[in-house]
């Protein structure tokens, strides 16, 4: 439905893969005001379809690919798009914010979102050109790895003059085709990594979607937006995190800081420090292997690395991969990680879940629970194991299920490091209690970003008390909602780091930074007021350019308070859908290793005080004791779903 707002192309297409029927899906301006775009728009669409009885691998599931109004607007780091679906890994809604070119080109093709449902009768790829949808046989590319697939698709999109039509793609590799539960969807070198979106696409027998077109993204107030964007770019370039650390060291630059703060997951989260961390650090990567920095479209941060593997220039590993395939399995060989990172992307598998599944299997073997041949620090066979997982051969067939299911079969639930079935990221939460709460409550499972990324206050950017539970619940809610909205708008979450005023990051020893570190645990009451009555923040924050950018792009009135409220709506909507699939307080859990075993036997606080934080968190969110949004909360947020529930 056409929109009066800028930033939107005004059309959402629903494609039934079974019948090959293509129809326009109604998404009105009222919907846009409430559900914005990206993961929240996807949640609205999923929520309108899902009753709680659907299965991930069934014709009732939907794969919803959405952009946000900022996607393609020219704002910093705004080439992002989102993929949401019912996850085969968790059984709940998963969402994944991805870079690459697809979001931009989907909008060039005239679409805000794509809803895919049903199942093709044979391997298929879809071409979308200026709203026109063409189905193609994918028999010849089925089985190909992701790099080869994308090259083959470019060949198919070659025009008469020999040039490849400019396009954006999403595709799966063998892991998705073979329904590895943590397989991903790849777009250029970027990955929609988490929650098994690739397996859903594989089940649909859909190998790829390519989008192209020549439409322009409308911007409400172009003149103001151009000026504001210039300022915003400059701000990001001058900020110590987005202008220095991320461009120079990438996400990998965090390894050494995590080591110092005891939050570097080591040996399947047994420890928070790895003796050999320097060999697998961001500094080592930058000094010995980095060739050039890369970035998504319109991104001044350019956090991606290009490294050389076997004479070929490929994408370098992110922090998660570096840590989990480094110290996580007691491996100090950086070159091997570069190679595996490339191989996993080519096979189309989430490196986080895959690495954690391997480290669970190593520990299960070490403890005599499962004789699988995998041992910590013995990594010669890992490339072969990854292939076996992707093609579901031998032991790989079992590893493809992830650590939760394996621990149910072989035991060792206390060291199967997942939340809701999704493996945790690389930050060891026993020294970052707030992140522990975030992992446990995140709608998509053990994700640091969807969990609010409080670790940035707990030892990385700032130095708030790491293990206290004070203040953590309210701050977690605030950051979860903030990130939710940035994602919904179609921007990269990394732009949020500039939210922390530069002087705090530049001068960690200054009196004001030390004061803020001390005061943060006592900030709960103040943060609670902002969380509860965001409308009092009826202004733009000078350090947070997103609200003005959103206003100039769309023409919708946006303040910092509105922005948080929209994020809160998205978070609650996903939770409400997850309720239909059985989520409750018991599912907001972490393995016992993290909540009951001390990381440091001499420090009684070195574990996640989860239950204490959950109580405060539920209260702050307006959820009942069972961790479910009350009808009052849903009404307040104008989530107009039929909740079918009495409190």
């Amino acid at each position, binding site marked *: 439905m056409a929109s009066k707002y800028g930033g939107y192309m005004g059309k959402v297409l629903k494609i039934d893969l079974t019948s090959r029927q293509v129809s326009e899906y109604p998404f009105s301006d009222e919907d846009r005001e409430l559900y914005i775009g990206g993961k929240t728009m996807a949640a609205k669409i999923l929520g309108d379809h899902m009753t709680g009885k659907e299965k991930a691998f069934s014709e009732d599931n939907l794969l919803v690919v959405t952009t946000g109004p900022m996607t393609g607007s020219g704002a910093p780091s705004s080439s992002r798009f989102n993929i949401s679906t019912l996850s085969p890994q968790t059984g709940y809604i998963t969402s994944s914010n991805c870079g690459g070119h697809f979001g931009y080109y989907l909008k060039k093709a005239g679409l805000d979102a794509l809803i895919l449902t049903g199942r093709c009768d044979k391997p298929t790829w879809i071409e979308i050109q200026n709203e026109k949808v063409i189905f193609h046989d994918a028999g010849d590319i089925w089985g190909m790895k992701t790099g080869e697939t994308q090259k083959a698709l470019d060949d198919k999109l070659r025009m008469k003059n020999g040039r490849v039509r400019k396009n954006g793609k999403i595709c799966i590799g063998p892991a998705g085709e073979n329904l590895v539960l943590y397989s991903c969807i790849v777009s250029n070198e970027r990955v929609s990594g988490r929650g098994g979106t690739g397996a859903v696409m594989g089940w649909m027998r859909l190998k790829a979607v390519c989008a192209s077109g020549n439409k322009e993204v409308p911007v409400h107030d172009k003149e103001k937006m151009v000026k504001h964007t210039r300022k915003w770019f400059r701000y990001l370039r001058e900020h110590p995190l987005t202008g220095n*650390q991320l461009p120079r060291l990438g996400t990998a630059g*965090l390894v050494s800081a995590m080591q110092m703060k005891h939050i570097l997951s080591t040996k399947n989260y047994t420890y928070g420090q790895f003796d050999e961390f320097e060999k697998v*650090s961001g500094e080592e990567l930058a000094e010995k292997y980095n060739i050039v920095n890369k970035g998504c479209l319109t991104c001044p941060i350019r956090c991606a690395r290009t490294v050389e593997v076997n004479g070929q220039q490929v994408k370098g590993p992110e*922090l998660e991969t570096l840590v989990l395939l480094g110290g996580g399995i007691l491996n100090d060989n950086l070159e091997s990680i570069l190679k595996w990172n490339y191989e996993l992307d080519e096979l189309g598998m989430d490196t986080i879940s895959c690495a954690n599944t391997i480290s669970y299997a190593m520990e299960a073997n070490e403890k005599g629970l499962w004789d699988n041949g995998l041992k910590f620090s013995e990594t010669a066979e890992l490339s072969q194991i990854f292939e076996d997982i992707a093609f579901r051969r031998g032991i790989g067939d079992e590893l493809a299920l992830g650590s939760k299911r394996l621990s149910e079969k072989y035991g060792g639930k206390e060291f199967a490091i997942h939340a809701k079935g999704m493996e945790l990221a690389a930050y060891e939460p026993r020294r970052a209690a707030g992140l522990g709460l975030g992992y446990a409550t995140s709608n998509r499972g053990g994700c640091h970003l969807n969990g609010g990324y409080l670790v940035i206050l707990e030892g990385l950017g700032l130095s708030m008390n790491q293990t206290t539970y004070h203040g953590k619940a309210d701050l977690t809610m605030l950051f979860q909602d903030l990130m939710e909205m940035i994602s919904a708008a179609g921007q990269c979450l990394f732009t949020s780091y500039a939210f922390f005023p530069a002087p705090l990051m530049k001068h960690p020893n200054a009196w004001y930074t030390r004061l803020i570190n001390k005061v943060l645990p006592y900030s709960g009451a103040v943060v609670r007021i902002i969380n509860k009555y965001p409308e009092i923040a009826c202004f733009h924050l000078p350090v947070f350019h997103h609200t003005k950018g959103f206003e100039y792009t769309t023409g919708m009135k946006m303040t910092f308070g509105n922005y948080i409220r929209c994020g809160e709506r998205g978070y609650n909507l996903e939770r409400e859908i997850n309720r239909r699939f059985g989520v409750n307080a018991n599912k907001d859990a972490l393995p016992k290793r993290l909540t009951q075993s001390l990381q440091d036997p001499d420090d009684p606080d070195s574990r996640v005080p989860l239950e204490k934080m959950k109580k405060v968190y539920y209260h702050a969110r307006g959820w009942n004791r069972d961790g479910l949004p009350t009808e009052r909360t849903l009404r307040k947020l104008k989530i107009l779903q039929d909740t079918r529930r009495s409190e």
Partner: protein
Amino acid sequence: MVRVKIFGTARLKAGVGTFERDVKNVDELLDVIPNLTRKEAKDLVLLVNGKPAGRRYRFRDGDEVVLLAPAGGG
């Protein structure tokens, strides 16, 4: 003699990851970090033998000193 390790972007600037210096206290150390001005060095977080240390810390022979900049984003 103390052993100093630098991490993060400061290490790229210093051009060296590890070095040894004969310094008695933090004040002296701030003046001897390669390619970093005293002002820049003052903005690094200091850990001695794995524990956060203040500006008044007096080094003992064999101390391992870590200097790193705040970081975020992963």
